[in-house]
């Protein structure tokens, strides 16, 4: 903390927890841009500026049924692509693919983005039970598992298509596996599920278990039917005009809230990592580490 010696207040930046400021802030030496002579005591008016004039934010119209279907199709397709053996993933999130230092100079720096980080996170280095479920991202496409129409590839790639030398587990019958993924959940689907599950939960606690179960089943059935209604194929196929209609699926908003209430009670488990750190939140900790800690439980 460089500010400590000179500035005389904790944290060194922004006067957080420093002396009372009365709505004005004193700039730390390092913060002043070089045009301003920091030796002269520069006092900036730290009051909130005037509110922005009211601005009418343009709002996109809701999705039509047709668009809904298109997006859904696209998402499923993308999910299947990600599931295929040819998908490679090396997201280097910490290396500035997003954020401020997006700019790169030269190939070396670009390549660095995609390299494996040889840095051990002490929180995840210890083997844990859940690690067996983690799916390791693929860095090289797995070409050996599926057949290719080789005559349409340049000859220099043929050896690669058979599978790399290190990876020569040539299966007897290569096959073009069809993807098992047939749906991609959207937030609405999850809502429905949650609602149904909430009803089932009712059933386990209350006396009239049978009734609630029936209710839940009925609900799921209704939801399914509502879903099928939206699909306008069948005899009346090819209706290019009607499919554009607005999407007017009502959603049980009230029911949702009820369910959420229930969960509020539940989520108070005895181990709550955030509560554990709660007392220290006001400290000058950089609590980025906590974020990572949340990833496993």
């Amino acid at each position, binding site marked *: 903390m460089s500010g400590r010696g000179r500035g005389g207040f904790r944290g060194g930046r922004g006067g957080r927890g420093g002396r009372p400021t009365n709505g004005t802030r004193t700039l730390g030496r390092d913060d002043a841009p070089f045009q301003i002579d920091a030796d002269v005591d520069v006092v900036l008016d730290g009051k909130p500026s005037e509110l922005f004039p009211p601005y009418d934010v343009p709002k996109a119209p809701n*999705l039509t049924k*047709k*668009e809904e279907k*298109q*997006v*859904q*199709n*696209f*998402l499923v*397709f*993308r999910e*299947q692509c*990600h599931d295929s053996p*040819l*998908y*490679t*993933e*090396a997201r280097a*999130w910490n290396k500035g693919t*997003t954020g401020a230092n997006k700019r790169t100079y030269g*190939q070396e720096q670009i*390549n660095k983005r*995609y390299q494996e980080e040889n840095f051990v996170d002490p929180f995840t280095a210890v083997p844990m039970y859940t690690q067996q479920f983690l*799916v390791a991202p*693929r860095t*090289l*496409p797995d*070409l050996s598992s599926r*057949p*290719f*129409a080789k005559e*349409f590839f*340049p000859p*220099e*790639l043929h050896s*690669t298509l058979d599978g*790399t030398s290190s990876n020569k587990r040539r299966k007897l019958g290569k*096959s*073009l*596996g*069809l*993807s098992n993924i047939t749906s991609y959940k*959207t*937030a609405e689907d*999850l809502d429905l*599920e949650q609602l149904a*599950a909430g009803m089932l939960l009712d059933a386990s606690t209350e006396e009239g278990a049978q009734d609630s179960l029936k209710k839940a089943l009925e609900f799921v059935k209704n939801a399914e039917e509502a879903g099928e209604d939206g699909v306008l*194929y069948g*005899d*009346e*196929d090819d209706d*290019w*005009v*009607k499919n554009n209609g607005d999407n007017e699926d009502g959603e049980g908003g009230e029911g949702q809230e009820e369910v959420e209430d229930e969960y509020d009670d539940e*989520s108070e*488990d005895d181990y709550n990592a955030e509560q554990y750190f709660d007392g220290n939140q006001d400290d000058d900790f950089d609590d980025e580490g906590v*974020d990572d800690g*949340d*990833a496993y*439980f």
Partner: protein
Amino acid sequence: MNVTKTVAELCALIIDEMYGELPSRIFSMLLTRGRSTILDLEQSMEMTRSKIRHGLAVLQQYNLLYWHLDPGAQHAFYEANVENAYYLIRAGKILEMVETSYGPPAKDVMQNLLLSGQTRIGDLVVAYQERIEQDNKQKAASPDEESYKSNLLVKSTGQLNSVICRLVEAELIDLVTADTFESPDDILKKVEKEVNDKHFYGGVRGTKAKIEYQEKLAERLREVRSEPKSLKRKLEQNGSSAKRRKLLGGGMTNGLVEDEMDPALDPQQVIRVNYEKCTVDLRNRRLVQYASDLFGDTTSYVYAQLLRHLTKDISRCRLDPLVDHYGEKEDGVPAQKFVTTAEILDSLKTAIDLSVGLGKTTRKMLSKKAATAIHPRPPMMKSLIQEAEVQGDASSDEEDDAETTDDEDYDGDYKPPPLKGVNGNHGTNGVNGVNGSARADDKDQEIVWDRPNQLRQHLLILAESNQHLVRHCGIDEWTVDFELVMASMRVSELDTVIEQTTGPKGLRLARILRARGKLDEKALPTIAMMQKAELQRKLLEMQSAGFVHVQEVPREPKADVKKSFFLWYSDLDKTRDRVLDTSYRTMMHCIQVLEALRHKDRDVLSTTRRSDVKGKEEEMLRQEYFQRYKRFLQSEKMLFSQIMRVDDLVAILRDF
């Protein structure tokens, strides 16, 4: 497609989103460096050769590359196929289109084909067979065999075969041939050489020879281009397909009846999705929607059938000037395709009540002659300036003068169909003229028309529109000048963008400038009837948005700002390019935002990807996590729907 920096970046992002990081990096390098060999790539990417090979293989499998191997050379040249990369974003639309037009089984096949890139038919059949067997096993294992509901869409290999046949006939799937992966330039070079060697060994001399050379070239190019369609031709020769189509009215496959009628396909052949034809079909749907906005639902049903017949043999939206220019003409008259009223009537569903959407008017309001006039030749391509003036040509009897002001309700013309023509307002579109002819025969009585006549009236309405939706090219013969319709649609789309960005005043100014050409700054206030200060503010706003442009012309040899003319003008092409660029940027931004969101919620997402959590997120995740997951999914969907919408605009401005 013009490959600008934005397009290049967008395509790399799209590939990254769909097929992963390795192919995306190689693709973007190919775009930066242009045509390169594996050695060049190795050097410029500083990557191991095996990695590059893997990446190239994936790209090639997904049809994202052109490659060319000179005879005897060791290394092939690779080139990026930008069009196909962009079309990936349209996958959802293509699938939706296939599903509504050809049924869910066809969508399933199409999806698997998109997913696996170029595929041998045999491999596809084997994959489906495995799936079917698996399903059968499950069925046997399930306690109650009767009630077991299979979720398979394609239930037998026979059905698969017939679905593929159907899609091949529709050209949505085509064959991969030896020339498929040659870039257009390479093909041209190859064909040129061939023609030179064969017919013009001593070189091309004289104008006559030059024309002949061009024709030979175009002919050969057409041959090369139609090679992937050989399978379709083969299927068409087999008489059963046409019969079957007739029997089922071009509708659904029901998988059981007509399996035997399709010839078995050669399992060695390799197929892939034909994006060009998909674009044609998507254009049809967009046009139908356009017609529906203008004239109402019933008329647009008619239009849909007309387009369906007309585009059966159109394989691409934009004609290649080199190839198609010479081919279409025979004896100076372009061979045009048309559809007869009877054909439309046959294919139109009987459930559609054609009497809806036709209005009525008194006899003196109409000119039957103008309404039913036949235009055997397409109108000359006019620039927009003229077009604005020629508007209302069809119904020239009534209105001549009030046109410039009426321009404004060009778009907002839509009224619920039954009301059509009741108020005299519709005169601009000439609808009255047509509807009136209904009354011409019988004045007071409500006439009940037979179906063919009703259909004809709908077609006449379409033909009379200023948007060139349909041309009445012969007695009971109809055709569409796609270039003209699309031009009008493009203008209306751009107008919407201009209005959204700069308000109705901006749109008005743009239209004035379009109609008048270049206008001096000093003359503008009087013409536009606006105050000078306000006008200047508006023009500057529009200039920075790229909708109007200014040219400075000095009055004297020594340029002086005070003495110069400032000519304002609005150029549609420039506007279009600007809007396209903004659209690409928007799409790019959407994907980047998604990436940022992923980064923000990476802890949640890595948990949901765990194999024990996947599928039962709600039980496994803590409530707070679950909420975050839900929120992420929601924003993801919104971002993609934004991309789809922007793509709609791009499609109209660029592809259709």
